[in-house]
Every structure is written in structure tokens, then in C-alpha cells.
């Protein structure tokens, strides 16, 4: 008895020590890990496992000693095709493909775990953080000596704790079914590692989303989990019904964000026929190239690179989270961060663009990369543009408050709170400069017009950044929304108008060069037309830039100078 108490005390003290490491985890566990909740999650988990198992067992042949049922068909019969007939062996026992049954069970449990963890976990984390932010309790946590890492780690580990309990209860059957399907334990563990990495990425992104001041508080969790669910469903359905999924396009990169992709290696290890499983084949996965290198040929390398992909983007989410947590009024990225993020994005994006030497395919890949770059540009505009008050404060006090306040170029390139335009331009320049040599090396001379597409897109993004920044300095209440509406209009309206006016890129390329995707027209444009378009964009950018500079100069005047100017105006 005494020994029992000691053991309990020791374990309790170990538990205490563990909880002492992360107070936020302690709070989440304390609030959620109640007996009733644990029992409910455990029950849901057990019922789910039971239902899945029953569904698989339902495919087995029925006991039919008098042979009244005739020939029985089912998925687990030994034979070719999806639903062959069951046969009996010499002893009169049904011949059943148990390995396939175990694999189906394993796959079903994997799917349930991935979908539940990513969708429900994302919802729970966002709902919890948004609630804390709107209630004001997160501010108190910010004022404590805890680091952002500690708080967010506690949230990620603690908020979905009941979900983890349910998934942990799935784990034994999941592992047993994997081993029953003759999947090596190391591969099962690798797959579990990828699920953990995907959760880390998705949850970091979810926390980042919940800390954005978008004014959607109640809608935020639904929107994000809905989006995660839709993307995951789309990617999973394509992986399932397409054994030749990898098409050596830039978009192949997207599949690396889908943890179910790894199942291809696990299925391959079972040596089961793919006609029964209908999943992406490893042979196809081996065709995926990065800078022309086939890195996904071996399971270890493939899983390693998928983990690397998740880790890189989790790292960047985390670094933005750290910044955002302590000062929610700041822009989402610092300018330096944005350069690094763009560089990573372009390095990885170009790696997946350079997969194919066939010119037509490579051209398509570059056009897709250009679209991705435009999206990145728009995201950077949103993440880097300071709002009216911050911008005016910068204009008014930068000489006094910032270290490099007197050196304008340093302020615009690296400074906090300064206008985003130069930083967006640098980001676009980083991307174009990195991509340009490969266009010359890979594409045939007739296809090098793609480069002008990148350059013109870069200038378009610069223009959008200027417009967005200018609208953000207006004295209206919903500046962010107006800014977004202005940019969306600039993207949508010109192609719509040109379409309605029956102006086709082939005949009138110049006008299309000013659209969101100038590449549709660069093919038909002469060098002088392209130069004219660039000149037009530069002039437009300069005009808007001048207007913004005038406004900022006005905002930067001291109260005394304003009074003095007003008096002068009255007296004159």
C-alpha cells in the first residue's frame, strides 16, 4: 500500500514537473482533460474503430456450409479485378486476402486521423485563440515572462488534447493493421512523423490566422477549417483516383503538403497489386523532380523531403508568430523576413518548375510559377503594408524613434512601419533575378518572352502595392477592406473590360500587358510594345508614388509647422 502511494506520488511529481515546463499546456490540460470529456473522446474513437472494422469485415464471405448463397464476390478474394469471386482451399476454408483487409483498415484509420487532426484541430485552435483575443485574456499572457514559443507550443499541444486522446486510442489498431498489411514498422513511424509535421505546419498557420486583425472573429475558425478541409479533400481525392498524378508541373509541389502522399511508399512496401488499391503509384512519384533530380525514388528520401518541406514553412510561420504575438499592431512580416520568405519560395518553386525539358511543358510551368509569384506578391502587399496611423507616426517621428531614421533608403528597405512599396519591389526583383537565368538556360529563344511576363507582373504588383498603400492612408474606417477591393478591382476589371470589348491579346497585346497576367500577351508583343508597357507602368507608379510622398510629407509635419503654414496661407 505504502509502495503504491509512493509510486503514485512519484508519478504525480513527474507529471507536475512536466506541466511546470509549460504553463500554457498546464492550463489547457486543466481546463479540458476532465473525466467526462476524456470518456466521450475515447468512446468516439472506439466507436469509429469499430465501425471501420465492421465495414472491412462486411466484405468477407458469409459462412455458407450448405452452399445456398452460390458464388460470393468481395474485395478480399484472391484474384484479379476489384471484386473477384471468393474461392475455397483444399480444406474447404475461404481463401481471403487478409493483407489487403489489413491495408484497407490501415488506410481508413490513416484517413480518419489525418482529416480529423487537420480539420478539427485547426478549428479548435483558431476558436480558442480568437476567443482569448476578443476576451482580452491573451493580453495578460503577453505581459508574462513566457516566450511566444512556450505559449503557442502549449496551445498546440493542449487545445486539441481531447483530439489527441482519441487519435492515440486509434494508434494501436493503426499500427497493428499496418504490420498486418506487411508494412515495415519504420515506414509506419515515418508516416506518423509526416502526420505530426503536417499538424505542426497546419496548426502554426491556424494560430497565425487567428492573430490577424481581420474583423472576422466568429467566422475565422469556420473559414479556416473549411478551407483546410476542402484543400485536403481535393488533394486526397486526386491522390486516390489518379495513379499517374505527378505530371512534372510546378503544381506538383502542392501535393507535398498532403500527408497522404506518403501512403504511396507504404502501399508499395506491401507488394499488393495497385489495381485493387487505386492509389498514386510509387513509380509515378519517382518521376517527381526537383531541379531535375529525382529525390522521391526512395521512401526514406521521399519522406525526408516531405518532412523538410513542412519544417521550412512551419519555421517561417513560427517566426512570424513570434513577431505578431508580442506586438499585434505590427505588420505581419518584417521587411527582412519577407526577403527570406520570397527567396525560399522562389528557390523551392523554381525547383519544381524545372522538371521537364520538353519546351511546351516548361513554358506552362513557368507561367504557373508566375501566377504563384503574383499570389505571393499580393500576400506580401497585405503582410507588409502598414496602416494609416502607423504610417503617419513613421512619417512624423522616424527621425527620432528609429535607429536609421535619417537614412531614408535604409528605412524603406529594412525599417519597421515604413511604406511597403520598396520592399515589395525588392521582393519581386529577388524573384525575377533568380528565375531569369533559368529561363535563358531552359527555354528555347522563341519561348523567352516568358521573362517579360515576369517583369511586367513584377511592375503590376508594384502598382498594386502603391494603390493598396495609398488607400490605407485614407481617413475612412474600413481602410483594409477598401484597399483589398481596390486591388481586386485592378486585377479583375481590366481583363473583363478587354474581354467585353473583344480586344484579344493576339491583335492588341499592349492593353493586355497591363493586366494581372501579362504573359497572355507577351507572346504576341514586340520588344518596343513591351518597353512601352513597362514605361507606362513606371509612369503610373511614379505618379501614385508622388501622391503618396506628398501625403506622407504632409503627415510628417510637426503641429507647429502646420500652424505656421496655415497662418501663412491665411495672411497671404
Amino acid at each position, binding site marked *: 500500500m505504502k509502495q503504491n502511494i509512493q509510486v503514485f506520488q512519484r508519478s504525480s511529481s513527474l507529471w*507536475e514537473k512536466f*506541466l*511546470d515546463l509549460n*504553463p*500554457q499546456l*498546464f*492550463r489547457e490540460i*486543466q*481546463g479540458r482533460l476532465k473525466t467526462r470529456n476524456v470518456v466521450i473522446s475515447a468512446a468516439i474513437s472506439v466507436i469509429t474503430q469499430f465501425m471501420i472494422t465492421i465495414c472491412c469485415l462486411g466484405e468477407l464471405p458469409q459462412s455458407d456450409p450448405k452452399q445456398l448463397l452460390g458464388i460470393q464476390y468481395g474485395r478480399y478474394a484472391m484474384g484479379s479485378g476489384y471484386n473477384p469471386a471468393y474461392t475455397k482451399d483444399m480444406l474447404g476454408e475461404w481463401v481471403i486476402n487478409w493483407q489487403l483487409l489489413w491495408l484497407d483498415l490501415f488506410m481508413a484509420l490513416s484517413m480518419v486521423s489525418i482529416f480529423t487532426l487537420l480539420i478539427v484541430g485547426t478549428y479548435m485552435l483558431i476558436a480558442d485563440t480568437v476567443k482569448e483575443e476578443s*476576451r*482580452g*485574456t491573451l*493580453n*495578460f*499572457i*503577453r*505581459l*508574462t*515572462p*513566457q*516566450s*511566444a514559443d512556450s505559449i503557442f507550443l502549449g496551445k498546440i499541444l493542449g487545445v486539441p488534447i481531447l483530439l489527441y486522446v482519441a487519435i492515440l486510442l486509434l494508434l494501436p489498431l493503426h499500427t497493428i493493421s499496418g504490420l498486418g498489411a506487411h508494412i515495415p514498422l519504420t515506414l509506419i513511424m515515418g508516416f506518423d512523423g509526416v502526420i505530426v509535421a503536417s499538424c505542426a505546419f497546419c496548426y502554426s498557420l491556424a494560430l497565425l490566422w487567428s492573430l490577424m486583425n481581420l474583423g472576422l472573429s466568429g467566422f475565422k475558425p469556420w473559414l479556416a477549417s473549411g478551407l483546410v478541409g476542402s484543400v485536403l479533400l481535393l488533394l486526397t481525392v486526386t491522390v486516390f483516383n489518379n495513379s499517374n498524378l505527378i505530371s512534372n508541373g510546378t503544381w506538383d509541389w502542392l501535393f507535398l503538403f498532403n500527408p497522404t502522399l506518403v501512403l504511396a511508399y507504404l502501399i508499395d512496401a506491401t507488394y499488393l497489386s495497385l489495381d485493387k488499391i487505386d492509389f498514386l503509384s510509387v513509380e509515378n512519384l519517382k518521376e517527381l523532380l526537383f531541379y531535375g533530380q529525382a529525390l522521391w525514388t526512395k521512401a526514406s528520401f521521399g519522406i525526408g523531403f516531405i518532412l523538410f518541406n513542412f519544417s521550412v514553412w512551419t519555421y517561417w510561420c513560427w517566426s512570424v508568430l*513570434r513577431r505578431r504575438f*508580442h*506586438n499585434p*499592431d505590427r505588420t505581419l512580416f518584417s521587411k527582412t523576413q519577407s526577403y527570406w520568405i520570397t527567396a525560399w519560395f522562389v528557390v523551392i518553386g523554381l525547383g519544381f518548375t524545372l522538371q521537364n525539358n520538353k519546351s511546351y511543358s516548361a513554358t506552362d510551368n513557368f507561367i504557373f510559377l508566375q501566377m504563384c509569384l503574383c499570389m505571393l506578391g499580393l500576400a506580401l502587399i497585405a503582410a507588409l503594408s502598414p496602416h*494609416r*496611423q502607423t504610417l*503617419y*507616426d513613421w512619417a*512624423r*517621428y522616424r527621425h*527620432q*524613434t528609429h535607429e536609421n531614421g535619417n537614412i531614408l533608403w535604409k528605412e524603406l528597405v529594412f525599417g519597421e512601419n515604413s511604406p511597403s512599396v520598396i520592399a515589395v519591389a525588392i521582393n519581386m526583383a529577388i524573384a525575377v533575378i533568380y528565375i531569369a537565368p533559368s529561363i535563358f538556360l531552359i527555354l528555347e529563344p522563341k519561348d523567352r518572352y516568358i521573362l517579360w511576363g515576369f517583369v511586367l507582373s513584377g511592375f503590376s504588383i508594384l502598382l498594386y502595392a502603391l494603390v493598396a498603400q495609398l488607400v490605407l492612408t485614407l481617413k475612412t474606417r474600413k481602410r483594409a477592406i477598401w484597399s483589398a477591393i481596390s486591388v481586386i478591382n485592378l486585377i479583375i476589371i481590366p481583363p473583363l473590360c478587354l474581354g467585353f470589348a473583344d480586344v484579344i491579346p493576339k491583335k492588341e497585346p499592349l492593353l493586355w500587358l497591363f493586366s494581372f497576367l501579362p504573359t497572355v500577351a507577351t507572346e504576341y508583343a514586340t520588344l518596343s510594345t513591351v518597353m512601352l508597357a513597362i514605361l507606362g507602368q513606371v509612369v503610373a507608379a511614379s505618379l501614385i508614388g508622388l501622391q503618396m510622398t506628398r501625403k506622407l510629407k504632409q503627415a510628417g509635419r510637426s503641429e507647429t509647422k502646420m500652424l505656421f503654414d496655415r497662418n501663412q496661407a491665411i495672411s497671404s
Partner: protein
Amino acid sequence: MNDWAIATYGLTKRFEGHIAVNEIDLKIKSGEVYGLIGPNGAGKTTLIRMLAAAEEPTKGEIYINGDRLLRDDSNPLQKKRLGYLPDDFPLYDDLTVWDYLEYFARLYNLNPSVRRRRLQEVLELVQLENKRKSIISTLSRGMKQRLSLARTIIHEPILLLLDEPVSGLDPLARQQFRQIIKILQEAGMTILISSHVLSDLAELCTSVGIMELGFLVESASLSELYQRLSRQQIILGTLGKMEILQQALRQNAFVETWEMMPERDRLKVNFTGEKQDCADLLRSLILADIPLTEFHCIQEDLETIFLKLGHQQAS
């Protein structure tokens, strides 16, 4: 710079064209109880929020015990020195009083051995020992406010920032709160407290700052403020005729003016003399055979001083 518990230099905060806090150079000595008064919208809450690192200043620097206060995670030690109680006090309604305080004790890295003792101490201090197992949502407003104060001091900060801590409390709860503040002051904490209840501040504070339209228009020790701005007054009561008393008062050079009090046999005299002059006046009145029933020296209170300074905006 190290002598000051709080020192700010050119602290400024702008919101949409209006300056909430304007170039404030505030200095508060260690161990002081500093009262911040001013009408609504004067910038008190913004100033306190900036001092607590809950708000980013537009310009200016803040030093807490000589160390620059920055709004990031580079200064965990400084955060342990600060305790901040805002005017609204969000709590976790689903937690018990004990669990809530334990959570914050852990957030402030209190050792397990110290934690339990400290929790008991603060619960005793805020008189919530019997509510330790109660769910927070069941507590009254006064109790919630005391619990928030307990959370603010759980890590034994050396600087307390209290923003309108007694607003919305009944007189009894206010008295309890005052007593707690006095205990904390005796324990050596530096306390900055903003309140509209000036009688409370007069009782608690050693120094006072007056804010108006974002400016710190006055910052001085309470005794200096009284000495400088508060007139001495004497309440006089007599059984005899008022005219005789008034005649005797006219002969004293230190008597400025007087006014009749609602009770017909009492006068309130504005007196400019020192204590010795006061004693001389009393002696002269007795020698003049005036049957005095009351001779009582008082000073103008903080509220009168505040109003006299012209800060008459509605609060």
C-alpha cells in the same frame, strides 16, 4: 536613472490625429504610491498601458528601475517586476479561483515550493480564502476585482500599475481595496494608481500627477501640492453673537475671508498664517471673551485643489 522606479522621456501616443499622451516625462521614486488623476480622455489609461508594455508608444522611452522597457520577449525579468491591473479585468470564467491563480503563478515561473505558499498569501490578502474552490463566474464584481488584484501581485512585482481599480465597487469593497493597497505599500511596492475617487487617492498616495488633454500638467508630492495649492481653513463655532466673532476676525491680518456654514453658529475662515499664527488667533479670541465651541484647522482637499486648478471637465 536607477533611482527611479519609473522614468519616461518624451512619451507620446497618437490615435488617429489626436494625441492621447503628449511628451510626458514622468518620474516616480521607488516605494511611492503615485496617484494619477484627470478627466476622462486625459490619457491616463493610455499612459498606464504603455507603462505596462500593453501598448506601443508612438515615441519616447520608458525605463523601469533603470532598464529600458521594450515590447518583446527580450525582457522576461522586467515583466516579472511589473504587475498591471486594467480597468476591465477579463478572467477565465471556467476556472476556479485557485486554478486561475495557479495558472498565472506558473506563467510567472514561480517555483512549486513557493507557489502554494504565495497562492495562500494572496488569497488571504484579498480575502478570498473561502472562495478558493469557487468557479470564477459565480463571484461578485468586487470579488472578481480582488481576484484580479491577486493575479496582479501573485509574482510579487515591485511595481504595480492599477487603472481605476475601485470603479464600480460599493463603499465596503472600496474600503477593503484601500486596505489591501496600504498593505502592499507597506511591503515596499511602488504603486501607480489612477482613479476618479480623489478622497481615496488622498488617503493612499504620496505623490500625485494631474493629466489633461494628454499632458502631465502637475506632478508633485502630495504634501508639496497641499503646501502650494491648498489653503488652510479654520472652522469656528461660538455660543455668542456672530458679529462679535466677525469683528475679532477682522482684526487678524492672516484672516482672508470667511463664509457662514449651514449651521448658523459656525464659520469657515480662509487663513493664510502658519501654525503659530493659528495659535495666536485662538488666544486672541479667548482673550476677547468669545464663547468658542469649536476651533478646528483643516486643509482644502484634493478634489478642491483639482477643481481650483481649472480642471473642470466632466469626469
